[in-house]
């Protein structure tokens, strides 16, 4: 068990940290969107938006097979339109519901476009390979949590113990144990629910054996996708009142609001409207749908999930956390950070407990893993901060050798991450200290740049409700800056790092305690 825990941790830990870090940030992905795309820092509307007005203003040009409107929520004040343009290309536009004007292209992938998908599939798209890497990491995480609990002999006696004043290894191990055991329900639930979300990918056998290979039947019954369809009639028709359809749907759903609206075959006599239920008001990430006839507004079909689907939607929902519950949202953020601390301290303990032995016998393990750890822990944080800074520095129409603004931000992320790895392997004794200092400086710079480029500094954003998202991100950045400075200070206090001392860290560090 100890062997399993150690080896799974060392080999998969870097990927796990990336997934946990991006996942923790993704809790506030909509808030990061507001921070990175200032044009979306809009006030919430006082009255619900009229769907008929939206349709009147925004009906697609002829030819679009589907017209979809994603309605604003309390975290996403913009509405999103998706339709096929005159050339048949799928386009999407962000709308300010208050003024009904189209917002300029965001020029940034931001939270929902980069950070959240990074967590889901590490942006490794070919053949869906990324889903499998994340899935395997998730399975490894479950093995790690179980083996960790088994090998932790004093799991109850040490439940509340954080012994920093003893040897450094004791403090690191205690922190690793507390971060793991105290948040054990969260770690298990999050990892397992993450795997359950993608059961369609990890268990293709369901479709082959239970549905005789009929993908459409499976997705229709399990997720309601395409549970109602009818072809175009080929002659023009008008659309009945969308707001009345919405009212009928809300009655069926016990008062819950509409989340998405789709008009299929818009402009045709055979048009029908699909209304999707909001996911804000309950834990399950529901896919409840009501289908209406376009011309008359009468109900055609109501999608009801089967019991197995209900369970899967609840489990998925507790992972997606798209519901409106601010205590839970902040709790998930803190517990996600605890997971990051658990993974990082796991690495640190492995390194510290083998440092002397490897130095004496000339093994490269510690050097390799330490470089890997610095790069994957402080490195990815630095890369994320570089993403924020690039976002604030790049002008709206920036291009460089043919690379657009959106991609330039991602280049900043990747280059800083690679630099962090290089720095870690080239300057092993100073890597932690220098990267902590860099994190502190980068985070402070990001907060400053937000103020300089948008004027929404923390004192203003804390007071105005529609800027609460910006305040959230600024506060987190300030937290990172303070933590980085604190860590740098603690590291600097280690006698082995006195100026001019290039001595072997491993021999002096033990006597320092």
């Amino acid at each position, binding site marked *: 068990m100890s062997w399993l825990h150690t080896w799974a941790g060392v080999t998969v830990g870097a990927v796990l940290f990336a997934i946990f870090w991006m996942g923790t940030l993704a809790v506030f992905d909509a808030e990061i969107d507001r921070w990175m795309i200032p044009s979306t820092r809009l006030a919430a509307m006082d009255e619900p938006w009229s769907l008929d007005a939206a349709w009147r203003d925004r009906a697609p040009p002829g030819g679009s097979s589907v017209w979809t409107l994603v309605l604003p929520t309390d975290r996403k004040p913009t509405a999103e339109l998706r339709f096929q343009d005159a050339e048949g290309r799928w386009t999407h536009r962000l709308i300010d519901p208050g003024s009904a004007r189209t917002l300029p292209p965001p020029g940034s992938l931001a939270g929902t476009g980069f950070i959240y998908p990074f967590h889901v599939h590490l942006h490794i798209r070919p053949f869906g390979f990324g889903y499998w890497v994340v899935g395997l990491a998730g399975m490894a995480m479950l093995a790690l949590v179980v083996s960790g609990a088994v090998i932790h002999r004093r799991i109850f*006696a040490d*439940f*509340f113990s954080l012994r*920093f004043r003893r040897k450094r290894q004791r403090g690191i191990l205690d922190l690793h144990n*507390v971060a793991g055991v105290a948040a054990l329900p969260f770690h298990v639930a999050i990892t397992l629910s993450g795997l359950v979300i993608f059961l369609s990918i990890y268990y293709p056998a369901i479709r082959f054996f239970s549905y005789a290979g009929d993908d459409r039947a499976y997705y229709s019954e399990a997720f309601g996708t395409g549970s109602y369809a009818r072809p175009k009639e080929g002659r023009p028709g008008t659309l009945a009142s969308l707001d009345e359809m919405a009212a009928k749907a809300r009655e069926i759903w016990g008062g819950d609001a509409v989340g998405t609206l789709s008009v299929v075959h818009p402009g045709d006599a055979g048009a029908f409207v699909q209304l999707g239920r909001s996911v804000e008001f*309950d834990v399950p990430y529901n896919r409840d749908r009501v289908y209406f006839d376009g011309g008359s507004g009468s109900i055609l079909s109501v999608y009801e999930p089967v019991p197995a689907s209900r369970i899967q939607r609840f489990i998925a929902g507790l992972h997606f956390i798209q519901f409106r519950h601010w205590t839970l949202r902040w709790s998930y953020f803190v*517990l996600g950070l605890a997971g990051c601390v658990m993974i990082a301290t796991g690495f640190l303990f492995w390194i510290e407990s083998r440092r002397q032995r490897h130095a004496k016998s000339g093994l490269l393990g510690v050097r390799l893993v330490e470089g890997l750890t610095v790069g994957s822990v402080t490195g990815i944080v630095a890369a994320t901060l570089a993403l924020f800074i690039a976002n604030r520095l790049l002008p709206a129409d920036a291009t460089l050798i043919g690379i657009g603004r959106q991609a330039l931000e991602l280049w900043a992320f990747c280059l800083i991450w690679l630099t962090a790895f290089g720095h870690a392997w080239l300057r092993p004794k100073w890597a932690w200290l220098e990267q902590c200092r860099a994190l502190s400086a980068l985070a402070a710079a990001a907060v400053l740049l937000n103020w300089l480029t948008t004027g929404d500094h923390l004192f203003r954003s804390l007071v105005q409700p529609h800027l609460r998202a910006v305040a959230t991100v600024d506060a987190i950045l300030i937290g990172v800056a303070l933590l980085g400075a604190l860590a740098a200070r603690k590291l600097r206090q280690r006698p082995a790092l006195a100026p001019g001392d290039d001595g072997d860290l491993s021999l002096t560090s033990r006597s320092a305690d």
Partner: protein
Amino acid sequence: MLTALAFVLVSGFALLALSQGSHWRAAGGSAQLPRPAVLALRIFGFSLLLLGLIVAVLRDGGGFGALLWACLLSLAAFAVTAALSFHPRCLRGLASTIAPFGMAFGKMPGERDRPERPDNRGGETKDSISDL
């Protein structure tokens, strides 16, 4: 209701922590707590944690309530751990309230005096896993 919930959970974990010898001493408790007192502390502690579940479900309904309880349990455990590690005197008040009740449990009839286990590592003693 949220503050009440937080208070209930933190108190529950505080009682459980104080039932462990090293933390009882760190919070200023003098002698070793007699076995019945330790048991009582643990029963009360776990009961408070369960009460937290009821409060959470009353506040937010079944789904959200269960999630809220599970999350706040962990956060409360972190809070008590941090207090014990950085500022054990926070629990001094609680410890001194418990002490007279604990001592009142006293010795069971016929029980001999158990010698104090020597502290040989600056406050750390070998709590055996059979403690819980």
